């Protein structure tokens, strides 16, 4: 039997809107994942460091301040620099449609907006993210 999926939920930047991040953290715990939630106000460097130290399979970034175009690609860039770009990174929050393409290009595997059911997110994860060896 494969080990449990390890997930880091992180809020990059100065944004404090953590309702979505916390609801997801609980939903993931109920789904049987191991969840790490590091709270608000994390820098991309802090997030990448925790992801690597904790050996996670997936990083879920949440941002509702509008700073996603800078912050999300920073996280994927730092993970790549550390040779950890096999960690899947997904994002959520207030992310306008027009920004999606550039974020996908920067390595954000999926983006979930307001109104997404929890099952849609866990469904996507179960289909797309496997525990890393």
């Amino acid at each position, binding site marked *: 039997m494969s080990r449990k999926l390890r997930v880091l939920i992180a809020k990059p*930047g100065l944004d404090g809107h953590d309702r979505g991040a*916390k609801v997801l*953290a609980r939903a993931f715990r109920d789904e049987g994942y191991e969840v790490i939630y590091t*709270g608000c*106000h994390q*820098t991309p460097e802090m997030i990448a460091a925790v992801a690597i130290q904790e050996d996670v399979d997936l990083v879920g970034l949440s941002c509702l301040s509008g700073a996603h175009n800078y912050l999300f690609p920073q996280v994927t860039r730092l993970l790549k620099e550390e040779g950890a770009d096999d960690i899947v990174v997904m994002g959520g929050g*207030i992310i*306008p449609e027009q920004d999606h393409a550039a974020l996908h290009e920067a390595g954000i595997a999926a983006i979930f907006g307001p109104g997404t059911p929890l099952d849609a997110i866990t469904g996507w994860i179960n289909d797309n993210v496997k525990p890393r060896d």
Partner: protein
Amino acid sequence: MFTPDLLDKSSQLRRKWEDEVKRTVEKHADQKESWTTLSDMDIKRLYGPEDIKDMDFARDIGYPGQFPYLRGNQVTGYRGKYWTFRMFSGMSTAVETNRRWHYLLQAGQTGLSTAFDFPTLMGYDTDSPRAKGECGKCGVAIDTIDDFQDLIQGIPLDKITTSMTINPPASVLWAMYIASAELQGVPLDKIGGTIQNDMLKEFIAQKTFMCPPDPSVKLISDTVEFGTHHVPKWNTISISGYHIREAGSTAVQELAFTLRDGMEYIEDATRRKGLHVDQFAQRLSFFFNAHIDFFEEIAKLRAARRIWARALKERYGAQDPRSLWMRFHTQTAGCSLTAQQPYNNVVRTAIEALAAVLGGTQSLHTNSLDEVFCLPSDSAVQIAIRTQQIIAEETGAANTIDPLAGSYFVESLTNQMEEAAWDYIHKIDDMGGMVKAIERGFPQMELSDAAYKFQRQIDSGEKTMVGINKYVEAEEQVNIPIVDIDESIEEEQLRRLAAVKRSRDSRYVAECLNDVLTVCKKGDNVMPTVIAAVKAHATVQEVCDVYREVYGEYRDPGIY
């Protein structure tokens, strides 16, 4: 409330009605078994005299302008003056926000309300590494008094009141306002406005924090004390339930935590500053959410006024009637809006705004339909402000004071909300107050539980959100113009900040900041030294760094 004879007749008629209900339901079952408010309070099929029979008219209801102020503070209601149409706005640079303000004033808005960007909210300057990517995104960027001067260009500070949604650096932004008034030649006893300055709800819900809870409350008491003596028309704290609700609380939690926060501020200012409650209580204002469950919201707002009046009188011994008034601003619920079928948001906002008005709000912000996507566009803001004008001037909702008073249902629900709120308030008293409860993670956990439960109810279809889990449009094409904040704003702001730093007298700035440090260490009131520092062009972060140095930094414990 009622004569025994009336109650007797009512109970006979009720039994007859109940029998008919029973027969009807046996043939045609109700659409669903349980009927609850949005916050899961059970609602009966019908309310009658027996539901409010224990109320005492004079003790529990009364008249406007009379204890317990259930029916409002103002004896003339909205006839003398409608609520203040106060739209929250702020974006990119101070110059751009000033342009929006003039647009809003020309559109009939009667008060200003400022949204700051995240670096400003958190006490960082635009040139801090922590600020990268955030400049001007969800509010206006203010680094120095020079930006502040641009923000208020052409706004007469003795005529227009301005609300500033600012928390950890509230003392600094308020100092900029005070210094600007002095520069405009407006005496401090003539300026009016509000700083949000409510840190307790930041730890509970909004998560914009800097220093730990206790020194955060100390800084707030400094502003209360300074306002009491020097800026008597200023609302020094806007005790806010809005963010608590947006973070997922129930209506009762919003009510209870907000009022308990208010009590904490009263207790701190009287204990730490030796002020008498009547010296400052009338400058405390409140800020509530108007969510989509119409009657629950009306009951919540009515209950809030009565609880506050009772608490001030009975717990804190206030004598001045104005100390007992709960004055509040309301904003419609951002979290009730949907990105799906976004034009439905206009309808939601209108209903929520009507609830706020029927609940007796003194000031109102109506959300724009596009706020699920971005900062609101001019045309979306126009619909939002017109919504208020339609309610005020077309619907007749403002004709008479507290029109739902005496409704068996509304009075009963109001009582239920008050009772449930007191239970929470006493529970927090038993923990040693709100700072202690926050340190234990109690309100944070209550919110997490409620938010998760609600999301599960939406996912299971137990609760409905149109466009999200019911009446969903397949292949929906949303065509909402997106307001985009140009990335070049950050460079422009960095240039402005660098120019100020070059041209100011650095040695004098350092002296001023050292004065702030000395005062912080001594535990004295920071306001005079902070006003001097911002006049010398010290930045928001430079002052906040002094606070961080003396009081320490608070880190989000990440409770979920």
